[in-house]
């Protein structure tokens, strides 16, 4: 039978595709490591930059990034969770409210980040008078990541098994009680995963932060101070500072490590959650 010969063409084609996909990506990570690993030490993570960033470290940048993320999360967790709870508790999925929310959030999710940069700059920095600040940056990022947060929380809530809902109803729990004691605990890992995903998305943003949080290299004194995020630092070092390439690579490695850790964390959490809540019948 010539069956295996039938598959030669397909096998070659797909393997070529496979290799073409994997090789450049691995190459990229290796090149980054080669350029950035030497000099990557604890000092680097903690010290302040000097010589326009060519020497010293990225301490203030890490702090700024953390603060920006903090502002962003403080905004999207209540609003995002609240919205998804509203959607799952009070409106049917075919109502006009649900449709509008779904539609407008989808549009927001698909909007190019540069548009958010324009919006954030004009609205938060200028109109609201926040200037280049951590607050402006965090709030703009919140607008960008809200759709993701709502979508993942909604999925997590919807995945709560029917049996738990029924148990709550049988016990005549009040709605707040039901949400607090039954739904949220069951959906929590999914919600946390969604939060972490939003963090990942926010970490990756550069253009937006360039025009809302600014690029001051100092340690920010307050939320109204300008601060430079890690991604902005990479950009500046690579494009505007001669000889800044090694620092850029090093910072990129730090950022990459954060992304990897986030990814692994989310994955682990979801797996663990599945094991506890959904595989009890086994």
């Amino acid at each position, binding site marked *: *039978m*010539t*069956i*295996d010969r*039938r598959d030669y063409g397909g096998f070659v084609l797909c393997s070529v595709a496979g290799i073409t996909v994997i090789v450049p990506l691995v190459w990229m990570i290796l090149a980054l490591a080669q350029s950035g690993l030497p000099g990557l030490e604890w000092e680097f993570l903690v010290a302040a930059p000097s010589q326009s960033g060519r020497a010293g470290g990225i301490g203030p940048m890490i702090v700024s990034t953390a603060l920006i993320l903090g502002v962003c999360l403080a905004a999207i967790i209540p609003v995002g969770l609240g919205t998804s709870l509203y959607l799952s508790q009070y409106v049917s999925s075919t109502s006009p409210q649900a449709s509008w929310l779904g539609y407008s959030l989808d549009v927001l999710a698909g909007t190019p980040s540069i548009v958010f940069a324009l919006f954030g700059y004009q609205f938060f920095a200028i109109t609201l008078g926040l200037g280049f600040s951590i607050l402006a940056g965090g709030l703009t990022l919140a607008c960008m990541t809200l759709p993701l947060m709502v979508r993942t929380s909604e999925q997590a809530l919807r995945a709560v098994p029917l049996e738990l809902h029924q148990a709550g109803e049988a016990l005549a729990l009040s709605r707040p009680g039901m949400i607090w004691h039954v739904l949220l605990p069951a959906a929590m890992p999914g919600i946390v995963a969604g939060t972490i995903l939003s963090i990942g998305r926010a970490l990756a943003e550069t253009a937006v932060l360039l025009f809302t949080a600014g690029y001051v290299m100092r340690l920010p004194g307050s939320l109204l101070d300008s601060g430079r995020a890690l991604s902005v630092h990479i950009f500046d070092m690579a494009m505007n500072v001669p000889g800044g390439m090694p620092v850029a690579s090093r910072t990129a490695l730090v950022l990459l490590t954060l992304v990897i850790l986030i990814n692994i964390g989310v994955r682990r959490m979801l797996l663990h959650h599945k094991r506890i809540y959904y595989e009890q019948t086994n």
Partner: protein
Amino acid sequence: MNRRISMSDNATTFANEHTQSNRTAPEVSIVGLSVYYGNTAAITNATLTVPGGSLMALVGPSGCGKTSLLNCINRMNDTIADCRVEGRITIDDLDVQDPSVDVNLLRQRVGMVFQQPNPFPLSIAENIHFPLREHGVHRRAELDKRTMKVLNAVGLWDEVKDRLRSSALSLSGGQQQRLCIARALALEPEVLLLDEPCSALDPLATEQIERLIEDLKQQYTLLMVTHNLAQARRVADHVTVCWIDENCGCVVESGSRESIFINSDHPVTKAYCRGDKG
């Protein structure tokens, strides 16, 4: 009344053509078969023999490894990681487990029908043409001829001959399952494995399929997993009773229909057949 007779006639014609081609259905023999997924055993030490040209029903409660056993015969278990098979399965003289056996050839000789009808998302004709083409039949005339032959054999030809190009997914459940059987028959197998072929169908469709299976017995060797004891009583020539012992499947008894349903001495068999257990 009339419809049933004509379907039977069609199948008999198909059978006659095949008997003329001088092929006798092979004997399938399983000795000491054990299937492990990782560290869990699905079934251990199963032994049974299916004489050529007859139907062996595998009965027993869910989870006793009947499907795992079936999957070994056409080596569908190969695709599952971590699956270990011990024991011997032979089709006449062919050792199925032998590494030198061409699996694709094996699966042409051993056809399989699944519990859920699963026609491809193609037209009715394409569902049959496609596997044939994959196995080397390319001439249009030949493809059409074989398609008509198998559709006739399962009694679908009259129902679909005017809409061969319409989607297979537009057929009813019973029709889809018959199409799946036709598809399996198109490769001209010698052995047919059926995994609860009627459990997703309504009683009328079930009846049609059972009649079809009866007619197929004449030139194929069939193994059918079923939950339905009444069905086994109706169509099977031989029966194997499976059971679960300490979380693992096993074969309790195997033999002719009479010896299982009427003359059995084994307590589990008797209890199962009476409906006391399982």
